[in-house]
């Protein structure tokens, strides 16, 4: 059969351009919304995902990384007793106040005390070794460049955290977190800022294992409670990251608001797609009626309509992918918290495809009732 659907789309591209743009717009809405959700709530678990620790040990019931409490200083021994564990590292979390030289007010900050060893696990995926070494200077801190204005400081400048003098020795993009400003410093500086002694336990202990399978096995062994080491809970890195993200997404007002907004975005996208596709299909009503008058079955008409919808959806999705990618690149360049994974990208494409399919099925159902007698004047 003559490729009527495709030829019509190509020849009358101006008529169908609004539909393609609408589908593309819906796709961009979905992609950007998904990227923002992943980026914003992904940053809540930045401490875990930017680190290479396979296991995290912290206070039982900790809902999110930022809610950690001190655990026993003997826990490293407990971890090293497991044959799968190859390295153990402390991590200190301190809620503190930042006061700058040229600012009257204070800023709430999250201080992360990390190891300054070259092979340290904390922030190993984000922090270059050379920059990490600068933290060996007492009072040295690293901040995100996007937070310099908030902190009213520049690189090399001085400030106070909990009245403890610090100096900004460098900046690291990608440190921006959810809910507050992140500051990196050494374990010793963090302990001083937090008023902790040498014998006080860390907020978390990270453990490295040989591989993921070993990590899971070690997790299963270590999660059995041992009262000799005080209260603690063990998570795999992935589980702890998901736990943190889930808390912010589902258990906070901000998360629920974002989820609600995502639903609205999907609904708006569906409405825009449905309306424009429906209008385009309806504008071809006479052509479908002519095909039916010629003797083509309604099943054939449906195939023509769905083929057109598939082409429109395909071009719209490509447009959405290109425009969405460009937008995300621009957002990333301006330190907007966006993140995307291939799976989420494919899911967005799938949602748009489903929207197009449902819209076209809905629109074609209306066309099935068309009487070819409408062609008679």
């Amino acid at each position: 059969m003559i490729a009527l659907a495709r030829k019509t789309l190509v020849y009358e591209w101006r008529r169908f351009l609004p539909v393609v743009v609408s589908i593309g717009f819906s796709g961009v809405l979905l992609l950007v919304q998904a990227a923002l959700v992943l980026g914003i709530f992904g940053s809540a678990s930045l401490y875990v995902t930017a680190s290479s620790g396979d296991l995290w040990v912290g206070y039982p019931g900790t809902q999110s990384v930022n809610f950690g409490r001190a655990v026993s200083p003997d826990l490293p021994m407990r971890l090293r007793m497991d044959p799968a564990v190859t390295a153990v590292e402390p991590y200190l979390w301190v809620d503190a106040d930042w006061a700058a030289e040229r600012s009257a007010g204070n800023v709430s900050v999250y201080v992360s005390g990390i190891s300054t060893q070259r092979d340290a696990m904390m922030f190993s995926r984000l922090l270059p070794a050379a920059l990490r070494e600068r933290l060996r200077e007492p009072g040295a801190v690293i901040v995100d460049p996007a937070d310099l204005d908030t902190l009213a400081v520049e690189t090399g400048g001085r400030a106070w955290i909990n009245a403890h003098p610090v100096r900004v020795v460098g900046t690291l993009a990608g440190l921006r977190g959810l809910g507050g400003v992140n500051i990196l410093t050494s374990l010793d500086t963090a302990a001083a800022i937090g008023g902790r002694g040498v014998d006080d336990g860390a907020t978390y202990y990270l453990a490295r294992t040989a591989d993921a399978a070993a990590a899971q096995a070690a997790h299963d062994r270590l999660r059995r409670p041992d009262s000799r080491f005080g209260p603690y809970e063990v998570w795999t890195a992935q589980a702890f990251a998901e736990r943190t993200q889930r808390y912010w997404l589902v258990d906070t007002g901000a998360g629920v608001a974002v989820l609600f907004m995502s639903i609205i975005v999907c609904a708006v996208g569906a409405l825009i797609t449905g309306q424009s596709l429906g209008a385009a299909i309806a504008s071809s009503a006479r052509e479908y009626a002519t095909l039916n008058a010629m003797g083509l079955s309604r099943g054939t008409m449906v195939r023509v309509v769905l083929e057109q919808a598939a082409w429109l959806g395909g071009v719209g999705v490509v447009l959405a992918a290109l425009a969405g990618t460009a937008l995300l690149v621009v957002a990333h360049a301006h330190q907007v918290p966006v993140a995307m994974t291939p799976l989420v990208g494919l899911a967005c494409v799938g949602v748009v495809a489903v929207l197009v399919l449902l819209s076209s099925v809905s629109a074609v159902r209306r066309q099935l009732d068309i009487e070819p007698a409408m062609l008679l004047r």
Partner: protein
Amino acid sequence: MPATHSWTTPDAGPHGALPTIEARALSKSFSTGAQRVDVLREVSVSVLPGELTLVAGPSGCGKSTLLALLSGLQAPDGGSVVACGEDLSTLSRRERERFRLKTSAFVFQNFNLFPALTSLEQVQLALSCMGIDRAESARRAQEALEEVGMGHRLRMRPAELSGGEKQRVAIARALAKQPRLLFADEPTSALDAASGQVVIDLLHRIARAHGSTVLCVSHDPRLLRHADRVIEMEDGSLLADRRLTPPPSPAASACAHPSAVSTAVSAAVSAALPVTPATPAISNP
């Protein structure tokens, strides 16, 4: 010009032969809100093959509805329609679609060509719907277009054709199917005098030379003069049924002098064609 031939069965010619369409007590009404309008009131009519039958009447008299019922585009509320041996009034929608595909062709006032298809593709589409392969459909499509004098416009799309040329492509689309029944709804209303005359001649030829049953709805006085039979309607009923020309003999209607007819019509097509400038092609960016 390709030789023409009759597509009808040998015994289906006019002048005593069986009618191809027989309608008995046809009724049809439409509801608009709470109001019900009777468009056809127990209309009975028989239509013979090999001649141009015209249904005329004022606007709203029910002639288009009668055409819709006789062609199987719609089902009647009451009465029966038997066309080519099939009782259309008892067929399901799908069965009527199959009947139209196999037996009928349509020519509409607004041409109803597909904007994206060339003249050749317009006709090929109709043939491919019938399961004819691409090569054969291309051959038959070209043949049909040449028969209506559009052999030099095969690659042009409707936007590049005049009204008369579009209608000729629509007729070629109908012709290529070799239909036993051809239904035309106001085929000349949107055309100028010269183009209209070409269309009338083509419809007449399809009836006479190919033996098809050609049923037209029109109030064009030019068609009135050329019809073999005129059925007048008013207010959903038949008012008059008069024959303007004696029905041709079965032999004359089937394959009589096909080359002569073809030559004559071809000459008529050429003579009737005005020298009009080609429609400027619309360029796509």
